[in-house]
């Protein structure tokens, strides 16, 4: 609350007091009072007036600052009327009422939007599940009628499946806590499954796959990690070079197990590296012909954050290494032991 503005607002009070002082002075002088007495009375009046104004100002300022602080500390500020005291002054009570009304309409709007979002999310999930039936049917059709042609279709089906999964996980990524279960899984199983998910795409690009020492047990959600690996493998396939190589390896330190996925593809320019996990960032590779959406790695990062997996990328001119670092904390070791 600014003092100047307060003073301005109190102008009518001050003016009335000044008029009162003038009238009293005139009356006292007219009734033959000594000038000193008049001045003294006026001085006392002014002093009391100033004291009043000041004390009001400070008490108001204290009260309002408290409200401001409270609001700032609130995460959802529109909920202030729920926790503030009901004011005592008549005009403030009106403002309080207005705030209450605003809060109510805000809550209604939020509820509405949340409901719509939820419905949409459910629709997306349902759609993805439904589209998986024809994908499965096509996969079986191809598998039962093998030819070089069916092989290409199977590769495209893997692409379609990846995109639908992406939509599903995008919809789910908001509320991960509802849909994950942390279990002990073997890293090699999830890697094998992810490779199997991309088998025909990998074969199509003549990828050489090498795997070393990934027999590690980690505690995480298999589905999510598999999805993350699928996105990474998808990128490896997309940005592969001639005679592509894909390597999976794991290293174990005191409290972490790091799974690294390296390739010898076109790599990521140093200037792009810090931004690859941003939503919609396509970078130089994305601009030069390769169709890139900037969603895959963003989703990976988001899911990793929720699962407590460290996700880092490293690239030097050629080739990229993406590392997933799983925490093996004391609690887990305690349970194991």
């Amino acid at each position: 609350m600014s003092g100047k503005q307060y003073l301005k607002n109190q102008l009518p009070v001050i003016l009335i007091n000044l008029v009162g002082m003038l009238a009293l002075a005139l009356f006292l002088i007219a009734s033959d009072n000594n000038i000193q007495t008049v001045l003294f009375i006026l001085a006392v009046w002014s002093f009391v007036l100033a004291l009043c104004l000041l004390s009001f100002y400070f008490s108001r300022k204290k009260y309002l600052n408290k409200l401001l602080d409270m609001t700032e500390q609130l995460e959802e500020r529109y909920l202030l009327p729920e926790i503030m005291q009901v004011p005592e002054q008549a005009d403030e009570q009106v403002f309080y009422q207005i705030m209450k009304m605003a809060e109510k309409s805000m809550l209604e709007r939020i509820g509405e939007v949340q409901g719509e979002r939820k419905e949409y999310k459910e629709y997306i999930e349902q759609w993805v599940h439904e589209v998986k039936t024809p994908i499965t049917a096509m996969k079986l059709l191809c598998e039962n009628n093998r030819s070089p042609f069916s092989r290409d279709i199977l590769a495209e089906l893997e692409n379609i499946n990846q995109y639908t999964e992406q939509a599903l996980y995008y919809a789910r990524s908001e509320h991960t806590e509802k849909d994950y279960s942390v279990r002990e899984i073997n890293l090699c199983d999830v890697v094998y499954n992810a490779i199997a998910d991309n088998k025909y795409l990998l074969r199509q690009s003549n990828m050489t796959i090498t795997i070393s020492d990934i027999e590690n047990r980690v505690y995480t959600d298999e589905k999510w990690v598999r999805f993350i690996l699928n996105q990474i493998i998808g990128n490896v396939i997309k940005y592969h070079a001639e005679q592509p190589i894909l390597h999976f390896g794991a290293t174990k330190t005191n409290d972490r197990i790091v799974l690294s996925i390296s390739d010898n593809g076109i790599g990521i320019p140093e200037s792009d590296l810090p931004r690859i996990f941003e939503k919609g960032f396509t970078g130089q590779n994305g601009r030069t012909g390769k169709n890139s959406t900037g969603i895959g790695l963003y989703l990976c990062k988001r899911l990793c954050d929720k699962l407590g997996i460290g996700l880092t990328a490293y690239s030097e001119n050629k080739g990229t290494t993406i590392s997933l670092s799983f925490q093996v904390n004391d609690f887990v070791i305690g349970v194991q032991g």
Partner: protein
Amino acid sequence: MKKKVLIIEDDFTIQTQLKTLLSGNGYEVFAVTDFSQTIQQLKEFAPHLVILDIKLPGNDGFEICSEIRGFSDIPIVFVTSSNTDMDELNSIMLGGDAFITKPYNIAILLAKIAALLKKAYLSPQTEIFTWKGVALHLESSLIEYKGQKTELTKNELKILYYLFKNAGKICSRNDIVDFLWDNQLYVDDNALSVNITRIRDKLAAIGLTDFIKTKHRQGYTL
């Protein structure tokens, strides 16, 4: 005796294709067509294993599963397009033996079915294949010809296994590599040639020549 598999799946294409696939892999297959009579049809067919979709017209897969569990312990493989934890948990709680999400990896599906059947019925199958007097021992990873034996590496064993399984037919290089990939052996086309050469050398050492024949531009055959 052929193992009997019952398919409970409402999508017609998947139903017929799954039937073709499983028949092709040596199972006797029956698919439920009238979903109001699922249990009766199951009792009549008396399968060794059930493949069960969750979303079905009428009773859903969970209900059918608990009904089956009321009178039988046969392995039940849940197949579904929804991969939520709730569904997986439900299927396990109700006594399902496996939970596979669509679109499933065909190799994994077949492997799961084989594993469950083996576990449930303990078929005393000797893991030996023979063809033209040559015996392939899967357990000990050996190949035997006229009393002479030679050891095989993992890759070599799997390649020979595939050729023995399809003995008499031509196996394309692509199919062999696909099969190896399904078994987590990620060899490429060149490595396959190297492996085949090595197998031939080993076979020659036990007095077997021209066992694996190359069909130009088509693949290999025994």
